[in-house]
């Protein structure tokens, strides 16, 4: 029996005659309800996300200082961007960020497995590992800058204690990006750790017991029994880590301002630098558009995976 006839049967039982509105509602409730419920979130999404994206792309075709008159330059900003050596430095740094940031889920999982024990002392140890999550990125950046200070920093003091020349990590164009990533990874690992700890607490004990009965232990037990159950968590942790690595900006602004001479700049920082310091909103918007295109690849992958997953579960 279809939904429609079921509803009609029910209507026949009604004593009170129905108004026109009610009839309209009854015949259309199936698609009208979700529409009404979706209206608010979708309009907010369109207003705050979709429209600004379209505006950004639109602005990227103009030469505009942010307040004055704008002049149409077509693809001029993009042509200039692809000829700008700084763009390739930023892009290269973005790739380094992306690759090294993928360590966060791996290390986070390792620590989570270690912390997932029921010893009473573990509470203290866990809270120590949570600390970076509590701290603002700005504070982490400032403190790591002090660690790296080539005169007074702890790394310099340790290096001198063993008779080495202290490295000036934030002044070295080859080391600086790694120095900033180390600081950012510290808090990203803690973030992944929390996700995995939550995932580990949801494990099916029966499955693990069954695995043990079958003689699995150690690595095979982890790889074939535990890890598959953590798959949704792993996926979310990886996707968020990838997005965090691409949009990272605050650590760079705090620790080096993109320096020395632009060697630690990433696309997000270059966009800020162009728009705010050089008064080039159009050029900044072009960088934003390129960054958006790169991120879209991951978002598309994320959507495809999610949809496939949902289809498989149905």
């Amino acid at each position, binding site marked *: 029996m279809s939904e429609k006839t079921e509803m009609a049967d029910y209507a026949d039982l009604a004593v009170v005659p129905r108004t026109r509105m009610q009839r309209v509602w009854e015949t259309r409730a199936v698609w009208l309800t979700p529409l009404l419920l979706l209206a608010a979130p979708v309009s907010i999404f369109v207003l705050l996300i979709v*429209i600004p994206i*379209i*505006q950004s792309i*639109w*602005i990227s075709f*103009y030469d*505009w200082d*942010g*307040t*004055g008159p*704008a002049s149409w330059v077509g693809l001029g900003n993009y042509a*200039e961007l692809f000829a700008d050596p700084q763009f390739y430095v930023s892009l290269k740094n973005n790739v380094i960020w992306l690759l090294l940031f993928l360590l966060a889920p791996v290390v986070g999982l390792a620590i989570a497995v270690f912390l997932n024990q029921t010893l009473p002392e573990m509470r203290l140890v866990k809270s120590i590992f949570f600390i970076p999550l509590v701290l603002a990125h700005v504070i982490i950046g400032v403190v790591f800058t002090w660690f*790296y*200070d*080539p*005169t007074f920093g702890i790394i310099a003091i340790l290096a001198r204690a063993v008779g080495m020349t202290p490295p*000036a*990590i*934030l*002044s070295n*164009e080859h080391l600086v990006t790694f120095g900033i990533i180390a600081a950012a990874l510290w808090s990203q690992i803690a973030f992944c750790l929390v996700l995995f700890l939550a995932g580990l607490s949801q494990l099916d004990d029966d499955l693990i017991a069954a695995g043990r009965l079958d003689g699995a232990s150690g690595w095979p037990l982890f790889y074939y029994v535990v890890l598959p159950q953590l798959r949704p968590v792993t996926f979310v942790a990886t996707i968020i880590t990838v997005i965090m690595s691409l949009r990272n900006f605050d650590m760079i602004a705090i620790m*080096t*301002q993109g*320096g*020395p*001479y*632009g060697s630690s700049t990433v696309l997000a920082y270059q966009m800020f*630098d162009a728009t705010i*310091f*050089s*008064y*080039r909103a159009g050029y900044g918007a072009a960088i934003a558009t390129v960054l958006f295109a790169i991120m879209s690849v991951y978002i598309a992958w994320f959507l495809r995976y999610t949809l496939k997953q949902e289809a498989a579960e149905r």
Partner: protein
Amino acid sequence: MLGIDLRSFRLAIAIGAALGSLAIAPANAQTGQLTINTDRSGAGQKAAMTKIASDFEAKNPGTKVTINFSDVESYKTSIRNFLVTTPPDLAFWFTGARMRAFSKRGAFEDISKFYADQKLKDVMGPFLPAVTDSGKQFMMPTNFTTWGFFYNKEVFERVGIAPPKTWDELMAAAAKLKAANVIPFTIGTRDLWANDLWFDYLDLRLNGLDFHMALMDGKESYTDERVKKVFATWQQPIEKGYFLENASSYGWQEAIPLLAQGKAAMYLLGPYVLTSLPADVHGKIGFFPFPGIDAKNNSFEEVSINGVGIPSGAKNKELALKFLAFLAQPDNLAAFAKAGAVLPARTDVALDDQLSQVQMKLVQAAKGTSQFYDRDTDPEMAQIGMKGFQEFLANPQRAEAILERLEAARKRIFK
């Protein structure tokens, strides 16, 4: 479709700005009302400005002065909006290229006649080029700061050197300091600007003010022999290791303690060296101007000047001019500057502390002045240039590549 074009976008910004600036600049249709927007909002400057305003009200019965104080950073963005949407009668601002950005768009009133009327041409003489755009004056200078070497007197005494007067003496002093295990020049370039002083001063000393300003205006090339000479001269102390190593690891303030501790001997900077240090070490720090290289260029100085102008859309320009004349009186200008630890932009004001007197003498003797790299040139050029200087200080051997990059940027920006 969605109907987004730049026009409606800009309209939205304008509406937002108008709403936002309602709080900053209340309407003042009635005559006798004077509205002033200012970013000089430190506690001392606020009190000094309020007192000047109430004195002005007392002298001119029937007038009412409203001052809208704002913090420096947000003022830099809000002035772009309020000059157009809700102009006050007076707006404080930077002079030089930052003023010209507005005067070129007709946002400031031409007040050239004011200087003749008030006979200020002589006493404000050294500061007038900074407020001049194509021969007309658009602002009144209020205060300034000069730059030069701040040095640790105890270290100089221990090593046995006197404040150098020439470039060669400076290099000899640096060699002695280096031999005595003291860093001759401390500097922090992470926030880029402290490095500009070396470029600006060397360019002024070697090539003179006219060339320097032409370079700032994008009319001369960065690959010109004269700019190469600036880099070559700057290269000497860099290659001999006279600068603090890894300067880009330090912010400009973070490099100051080394000077106070005697680990470094000199810092080319402004009076902020002193305001960043506790009062009890001030006595240890001395000052000398950037030494001479070529006699004909020795009296050009780097002087950063702030001022106040009348927006073209001001409602009460007569009263605004009257207030400017009142503010320009030596006592008022001195009180206003002193409250902000800067110097009044008049050469005939009596100053009580020694550093101020030295700075004032320097400005009086100056044949001409530039302001500062990032105030004299286009903002984008400044950003690219400052990064280039930072790279040069770390890798002097890349001089040629850096200058070529700056030249490419200049050609694109000043087309």
